[in-house]
């Protein structure tokens, strides 16, 4: 099953590359943009054989500065995740800060480094995760100026967790579209984001698995080309 999914993912990625490469891309402009973000998040967590679900809405924003092929994105988002009010599944407050340095070697290809600080606070504990990783992304033109499909995958090989076990795996993927006309003005984005955090098993207990599904909607403005 897993092998099938991996093959499917590879196929999708190849298809996207096939589309992105010949179609070309947007201009490599310079500019500033600011976007207000709204997340609809659903978190699923498995611990000691029990699966807990939580959901909530987060709000935040991001700013992007781009000079030619180099860009810096800074974002912050915060909100709550509501559980079932039990001791094992309490409500949580989430605060995520993220900084991304991107390099566009081609207008359609985005490579870069990501730094994420993720703070999850509950009545039982406060867990702070610091993640350092790299990303690869595609920007696929969708026929209209400024309308692009976006694909982005992030893998965090270096992690540091305070208040919980160590992370054995941390990654995320995001697909969606972005509308940002090259003449400037409005920015619209909608994407689906999936995050996976596997906490390592210890002598005190088995591994704890978490994954977050998020629908990200953004509305903002864009200056420059």
């Amino acid at each position, binding site marked *: 099953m897993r092998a099938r999914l991996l093959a499917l993912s590879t196929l999708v990625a190849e298809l996207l590359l096939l589309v992105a490469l010949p179609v070309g891309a947007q201009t490599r402009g310079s500019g500033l943009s600011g976007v207000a973000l709204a997340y609809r998040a659903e978190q699923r967590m*498995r611990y000691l054989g029990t699966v807990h679900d939580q959901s909530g809405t987060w709000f935040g924003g991001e700013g992007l500065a781009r000079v030619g092929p180099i860009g810096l994105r800074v974002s912050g988002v915060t909100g709550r995740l509501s559980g079932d009010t039990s001791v094992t599944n309490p409500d949580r407050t989430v605060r995520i800060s993220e900084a991304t340095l991107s390099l566009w070697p081609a207008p359609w290809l985005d490579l870069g480094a990501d730094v994420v600080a993720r703070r999850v606070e509950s009545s039982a504990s406060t867990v702070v995760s610091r993640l350092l990783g790299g990303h690869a992304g595609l920007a696929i033109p969708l*026929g209209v100026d400024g309308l692009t499909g976006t694909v982005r995958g992030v893998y965090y090989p270096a992690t540091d967790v305070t208040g919980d076990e160590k992370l054995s795996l941390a990654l995320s993927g995001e697909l969606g579209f972005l509308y940002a006309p090259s003449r400037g003005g409005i920015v619209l984005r909608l994407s689906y984001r999936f995050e*996976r955090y596997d906490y390592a098993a210890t002598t005190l207990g088995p591994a704890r698995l978490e994954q977050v*599904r998020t*629908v990200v909607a953004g509305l903002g403005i864009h200056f420059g080309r």
Partner: protein
Amino acid sequence: MRCRRTNAVGLALWLGLTLASTAIAGAQETAASRLISLARQQIEDINPDSAAALLRQALDSRVGATIAEKLRAFILYGVTELTAGRTDGALRAFREALALEPTLRVDSLAELHEALVVTFEGERATLQAAARPAPGILEFRGLPAGARLLVDGVVWNDRRRQVDVGARRVQVTARGYFPYSDSIQVAPGVTIIRDIALVRSDLARLSVTREPWGIVYLDGERVGETPIFERQVPAGSYTLRVESPSAPQTYEQLVELAPGRLTRLGTVGLVVPPPMSPPPLARGDSFYRSMELDSALLLYRRVVRDTAAEHGAALRARAATRAAMALFSMAAGRKDTALADSARAYFGVAFRTEPRYEPDPGEMGPEMRAVMEAARARVLGLVVNTPSDTLLPPSGGVLVITAQPTHQAVVRLRITRGDAREGPTVRVDLRESGGEARFAWDYHLSDGSLLSPGRYTLIVEGRDARGEVSPVIERSFRVAREVVDTLAHPPPLTPDAFAPETLSLKRAPAGVLLAGVALGVGTVGLERALGNSALAGGKPTGTGSYVVAGSVAVAAVIGFLAGHRTRPVPENILRNEELRQQYTRDLEAVAAENDRRRENARVRIQFDEAPQ
């Protein structure tokens, strides 16, 4: 009165210095002052050698005596030398003292030596005499026998003497002549010889001229050629006749010439009004016609010498000629040979200024013309002819410049860069010629290179075998390339000239739809691809992924429908490229042709207009 005041000042100074030094000594006696006091004591004790030794110490520079102390020491030293019978030593000491203070008096020290004051004052007089300027010498000639000569009221029995410099008043009286008086400025070391032409009291003087020139007769006796200036003749009534060879009528009139009086008739026998003079000469000519030659001369000289006014060469030559004629007439009337020399010099100036100048035939008679021609023969004149505007081939040609000296001479032609008269010379040529010196110039520099465009100055001068130098003639000229017609650049290609290289098609490429599908599938499958199966637990994927997948798909469909794509048109691309290349070739061809035309443009040499 002035001498008394000087003495008083000197005495006051001496006393002041003595008192001051005494006062200072009283307050704080210096080494020099102590030595001088001791020396004074030795003098009073008649020990001159001891006193001299002390004074030498006082005057030693290491002692640092003040001026007042030095003065005292020198005077006292002089006294010791007088006492010892060494007058020369005393005079040297007094000279030193007078050099420090020329108004110094020693009367108050007279009791030290009986010869002190006399010797000191004698030295002062000697020094003052040495400082006086050298006298001049005055010599008087032409005085009739029995004439009485007074210079500054002193009767001179001789006619040559040494006199002090400055203004000297001269008075001469002689029987049968009008008294003469004048003032002569004597310069140091200069000998002034003054010819004095006394006017006979029984003679009258006559000034008359005519245009054109004529010969003047009084009662049929020839007086001379016009202009006649202050000519002395016996007083009486005469029939004046002026015969002009070029005038149709002889002029006659009766004149009464009074003894000792000047009768100035001016210009006589004018049938038609005289021609208009050029403005700078009008006043001079007016005085000349009225035979006021002193005034006329002054005005003509002004025109000749006023280089700032930039009078033309011909005008200055005419003024110089008129000045010479006036001087020649004055020389004859006043019997002054120096004036005749000045007249010859002015004729020379006229021909230096304008070698081709030729006065009006009716202006002067044969006697004066002979003098003028003699002056002309001595002057080296130079006439330079330059082409005003010449076009020559770029590779080389010949520009002919001619210089015509008035007699055999070496003519030197120089060309300097710019308008600077004293700049680096870029070309020098020499020709010896008795007629026309031709300089066939190929407008190349001395090093063989072509003269670059710009301004230059041609300088021509001549020198004959006697060393006579001609006036320097300068002509400014400009070297430039001829302005040639060049081809206009082809007009730039307008957008209309090009065929569209792409064809715009409605609808985005189908790949957009494919991308939308792929993104949608990827969104839905993202959780399955990345998620942990153990955690999925058979629960369905969140609805969010379907919402996003659907939105992406819709966006792709909208993009496909609303977008457009372009298709290249190869034949148009090829045609446009050929058009661009042709345009570039045309531009290069025009530029090359224009370069060729400019390189082949002829060289234009334009001389500025020569001053008239």
